[in-house]
């Protein structure tokens, strides 16, 4: 049973991890995009529609990534080129995304989707427990793990990553050093959009292979919380995403276990647990003012206009 529950947790956590990783890169460049929910739902709609039309979930994945990435450009244009307020633009992006995705997917509601199948590795997949958990997953899961490793390397070991962080900490100094702030931020925003789109594709191709309106159901907001929760570090996003997924799945099992034991717990209380847990962990993490300050991109959310 533990194995089965673990598999459920992996499915529930992967979209959170993916979207949070993308937002992490965006925020490391100093841009706060609150439109994750909107980009995610656009990704889910594009992925589902493309997969239905072509019959290939892999084309669906590409469409999800593409949809989220292109949609995030709208945010980029407003906040980077026109220096509009990032908080308001992000919220507007979410409103627009929810409406637009409904339009995109309207003709596809109720169709049974194509599920992205797990990749089977010869021999490895047959190892008891580990084989089932680690070597019989779908592509998106492996991408999410690879992204954790890759982004960690990129941010802290590569030259470009260093530049990205420099922009996030002080765009004025980075600009003075000759780094193209706006272009880098555009790329970071698009990367965030693509990751959110991939997270959406996971929802409509793996988690629940179908399209219904609002199917992201607030997961984009959780992803945003995860970034702070992880104090802008990729490995902690992995840990935080899985912790959140585990609490969400755990409360469902707790309901059944409580029934077996004859205990009454209001289900609303259990449903509120993941949110309460997030707050508690946020407090613990941010309690140490110095480490938070070190990790928080100092220019986060601040507009930048290159002077000439």
């Amino acid at each position: 049973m533990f194995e089965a529950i673990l598999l459920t947790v992996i499915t529930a956590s992967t979209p959170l991890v993916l979207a949070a990783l993308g937002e992490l890169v965006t925020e490391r460049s100093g841009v706060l995009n609150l439109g994750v929910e909107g980009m995610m739902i656009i990704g889910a709609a594009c992925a589902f529609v493309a997969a239905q039309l072509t019959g290939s979930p892999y084309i669906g994945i590409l469409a999800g990534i593409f949809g989220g990435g292109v949609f995030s450009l709208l945010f980029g244009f407003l906040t980077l080129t026109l220096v509009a307020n990032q908080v308001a633009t992000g919220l507007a992006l979410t409103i627009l995304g929810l409406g637009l995705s409904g339009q995109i997917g309207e003709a596809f509601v109720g169709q049974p989707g194509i599920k992205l199948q797990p990749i089977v590795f010869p021999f490895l997949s047959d190892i008891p427990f580990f084989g089932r958990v680690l070597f019989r997953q779908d592509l998106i899961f492996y991408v999410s793990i690879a992204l954790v490793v890759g982004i960690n390397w990129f941010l802290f070991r590569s030259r470009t990553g260093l530049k990205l962080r420099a922009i996030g900490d002080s765009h004025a100094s980075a600009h003075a050093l000759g780094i193209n702030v706006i272009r880098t931020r555009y790329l970071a925003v698009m990367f965030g959009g693509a990751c959110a789109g991939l997270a959406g594709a996971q929802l409509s191709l793996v988690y629940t292979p179908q399209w219904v309106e609002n199917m992201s159901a607030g997961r984009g907001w959780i992803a945003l919380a995860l970034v702070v929760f992880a104090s802008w570090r990729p490995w902690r996003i992995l840990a935080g995403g899985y912790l959140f997924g585990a609490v969400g799945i755990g409360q469902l099992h707790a309901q059944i276990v409580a029934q077996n034991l004859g205990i009454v717990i209001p289900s609303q209380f259990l449903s509120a647990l993941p949110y309460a847990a997030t707050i508690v962990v946020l407090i613990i993490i941010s309690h140490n003012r110095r480490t938070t300050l070190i990790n928080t991109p100092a220019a986060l959310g601040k507009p930048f206009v290159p002077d000439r």
Partner: protein
Amino acid sequence: MRIELQKRARVSTLFSVLSPLLALALTLAFGAIMFWLLGKNPVSALYSFFVEPLLEVWSLHELAIKAAPLILIAVGLSVCYRSNNWNIGAEGQFTIGAITGSILPVMYPAWHSPIILPLMLILGMLGGALYAGIPALLKTRFNTNEILTSLMLVYIAQLYLDWLVRGPWRDPQGNNFPITKTFQIEAVVPEILSSSGRAHWAFIFAIVAAVALWFMMRFMLKGFEVSVLGQSERAGRFAGFSARRMVWFSMLLSGALAGLAGISEVSGSIGHVQPVISPGYGFTAIIVAFLGRLNPLGIIASGLVLALTYLGGEAAQLSIGISDKVSRVFQGLLLFFVLSCDTLIHYRVRLIFAGTKTAEVRG
């Protein structure tokens, strides 16, 4: 082609006036194209959106009802955002305000006294303020990001309301459905002009709050303190202002106003407590605040415009069959155009084409 911005020396008064009109014109143009592409008559579509709801008196009342909570919440948020405190959990403060304000009519349905309504409004404000005090406490004490804590508290508040009305607050005569008793008449926010429609005093509260906060921001030291601390915490410290106290002030104020909106809505518009009391007013109000450029008087206007798009969306659905998804896309467009046109107020925008041709939007 690329776009280049140049900071203006002074805020452009011309574009302050022109930018919303330009945004509206662009929205209308894009909206017309969108409706035309969907095979609808653009003129009648735009007519349903922006004119039809304004032609009848009852509909104007409905506009006031819809705009009241948006304005009330948004003016509070504007003070938060001006001082750089990002409360995005007004929906939760609205919910808790509705709950604490409803304690009296739900627990003492037989209490008939003129004092009950003022007490309810005060309790609602207290509840909202206290709930906003949680992220304020966490921010000042533990340095926790208020965007996230206030947002998480929204979900918790909604689940708490759900538990209340399905459990302890359920009307014993209500066939075990999740609603409380209907409030006694003394506990209902009265209508302003009951002969012509059902708009109630919440709209007056909203206007009063907006004007009062406008006065504060414009003429009082506190308003100056808000702007200075919002622009630079360091500068604020030199002026002897405390950022920590500002967190408390702005969060409690916006929480109290959201709470007032919550109890007014439940008491004036619904008449009992139920699991769903808000179609996301707390989130829409964030947009309203920015559309009104964080200026309380501007927020009155933007609250009315946004309320109009909701009513218009319904009218368009009924009279020409435009789906509500299209209405949401349309709202999104309006927001994007307003946000981008506002750039013109602070910046000169230059379009630079390849080569030497330069076109400039002057002003």
